[in-house]
């Protein structure tokens, strides 16, 4: 059981890493829009434009 004395602190380190990564992601605005990403996956511009658009 003494392996737990190593594994649990290791798990806590990973937890800290996960929290840090999430804070970074939130701070960079990745979670500002919580509605669009859910539907974005079904929209993909796989259709090729018929001609070069003059935009």
């Amino acid at each position, binding site marked *: *059981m003494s392996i*737990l*004395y190593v594994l*649990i*602190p290791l*798990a*806590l380190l990973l*937890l800290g890493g*996960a*929290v840090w990564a*999430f*804070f970074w992601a*939130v*701070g960079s*605005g990745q*979670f*500002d*829009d*919580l*509605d*669009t990403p*859910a*539907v*974005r996956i*079904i*929209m*993909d*511009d*796989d*259709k*090729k*434009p*018929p*001609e070069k*658009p003059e*935009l």
Partner: protein
Amino acid sequence: MSAGACFHCALPVDRVDQFQVEIDGELKSVCCPGCKAVAELIRDTGMSSYYAMREDPQPGIGRPPEDAAEWQIYDRDDMLQAFADAIDSRAEATIYVGGMYCAACGWLIETTLAKVPGIASVDVNPVTHRVRIHWHTADLGLGRILALLADLGYDPQPLAPESAARPEIAEQRTALKRMLVASLGMMQVMMFAVGLYAGDFQGMDADMQRFLRLVSFIVTTPVVFYSARPFFAGAWRGIVSRMPGMDLPVSIAVSTAYIGSVYATLTNGPAVWFDSVVMFVFFLTLGRFLEMRARHRSIDRSTALSTVLPNTVTRVDGDEQLTIPASQLLSGDVVLVRPGESIPADGVLIDGQTTVDEALLTGEAEPRPKSTGDALVAGSVNLDGIVTMRVEKTGSDTTLGTISRMSERARYARPAFVQLADRVASYIVVAILLVAVLVGTYWYFAAPDRAFVITLSVLVVTCPCALALATPAAFAAAGTRLSELHLLVTNGNAIEALSRSTRILFDKTGTLTRGLPVIVSTQIFDDAFNEMQCLRIASALETVSTHPIATAFTMTENEIVADGQRVATGDGVAGTIAGQRWRLGRQEFVSSTIMDAVDQDKSTSVYLGTAGHLVARFDLDDEIRPGADKTLAQLSQLGLQLALVSGDNKEPVRRVASALHIEDCHSGCTPEDKLAIIRSAQEAGETVTMVGDGINDAPVLAGADASVAPVHGALLAQTSADIILLGDALEPVATGILLARKTMRIVKQNIAWAIVYNATALPLAAMGYVPPWAAAIGMSASSLIVVLNALRLSRYGAP
């Protein structure tokens, strides 16, 4: 009458073959050249899957305006300064995009703009209707970007940087972080707790127990000090203002359990309750997060209010006309307002005459005639004349700004049901603390070694967690379900008021009716014409008019063409058909001699005539919203008293009332009258729900116990309403009341359960029969039962 709906904007199409677009090998009919151009642009840029992905549009959404706005103006430097943050050759601007209604629109805008050279990045948020763009000013100007958005059929409005700042994004980010810390912490601590509980049964190495408690302590600490901080702050505010809220018992429960656990960890005490602490904090944070999201959706609607005002105005300096950003407008400036433009500020009309549409402010569709000396209100729309006005008040000093501020205040100063529950909870907390002290004192003398353990058990087992969760959990679940049922709850108290409602008041225009006039009857005075001919002539004449009445005459197919049409402001239109001069409008305008005895109280009548004699009379009225009768019947079945209050004339109000079987109807009501009706009903002990959509309904909505505003009504009404009705049907109102009643039943069940649980657990714990770990399980289980019971609401009405 119609040949189907426009493929792009869903408005009725005149002739199938009039305007067509080939999309994915199929010919689609569209309603106008504008829609054709937009659909072709979308196709040619390879975005045609937009049509497959989007939600069904409301008719008219996405249709480009007939006269393209002058976007080049925004390429100027002073415009760039006013609407963008420009540093060197890069600029950033936030643009409000009207007509963006679903995620597919966001995708369309993002992908289209991202392809444009010079645009560095595009961030689209379909929920807030905003697009944030970074671009290189050397390659293209702001005007070009706006023109691109307009080409896609949207209505772009650049936002000044101060109105583009969104504190709610910062709030959401913080809330997300707090929730994540609480949820990850909960998972970890629960895992350690399983080990600890198993150890209690099977026996555990004392060192391992200490270790597990220590790591639980390490993980719980940030949850308490970071995730639960808003509750401590709220509790402190409650104490300072002597209005203790729900946050106080929550804070006491969290801090007692935490401090007790820390003490037990340090002194090798019998049990720790870190698991209960983190679970409690997580559920509360989750509830607050969902509540905040609903609130933000309503903020988005109220900030859209600023887009009612024009961004640019034409200032008259002597003989010179200058286009300037509206934010630079000062009191005393003279500005020119063209037909179709909205009035930029409060002021006085100094030259010209026109009619203005004040529907945004008053909610009534009838345009008001204005001539020299009349007051003009910011946000109303100039319909048909070119006028100059002298600006008196700008920005937040305008009537629009004042009403907006007032309803904001009314929102925050509401008597709250939740506050009552909070007070009850805080009494209970005080009672629990007293009991704990008594129990502790007794055991201190009876059996000093057991005193602390038993006191802690009492504190934990009676922790009002279930009680504290009983109301918010049910409200959060109900709020989520209501939004799925097309009712967006922006004020949680409304659910309680809705469930108690005994009387429901409806506004007429735009609520029970669609707010668009239709012809209800036609009377022919000249036998040489039949009804169809008269309609065709009228329709041909009205093609030039921007007046709302003209929509009643819109025909899908008309072989009669009028020319030389002229709009006589406030009177009607005139035009030539087959060499003959026709007039359509007020009786005095059409005929030199009064022939038809009009009942002033009657609905709006429009006359058609030629050469000074009357040919026909069209009686116009507002079309009743489809399904309104069914909803109202359902509401009265639920035992609600129905009433109709409207600022409109007696006759149309009576007609709507009788069509919908409403006995209690009031016409010609000012907002004060409406408020008085509500007040007198409230004094008689009734709970009143108001359903209305006009801006002048805002104080009325705020005065009612619960208020509902349709999403397509005035924006200001929505900001003061508790519930926003999404979509076109009234039906959710009835479903909402049923769900609200069910919610309150569940709240009562939850509270009853929490009280029964506490009442049985307290004596047992006080007598020393409950070990702290059982107390913790009991508390967690009772909270869980409350949450699960509340979650039943989220399936309400689902098959």
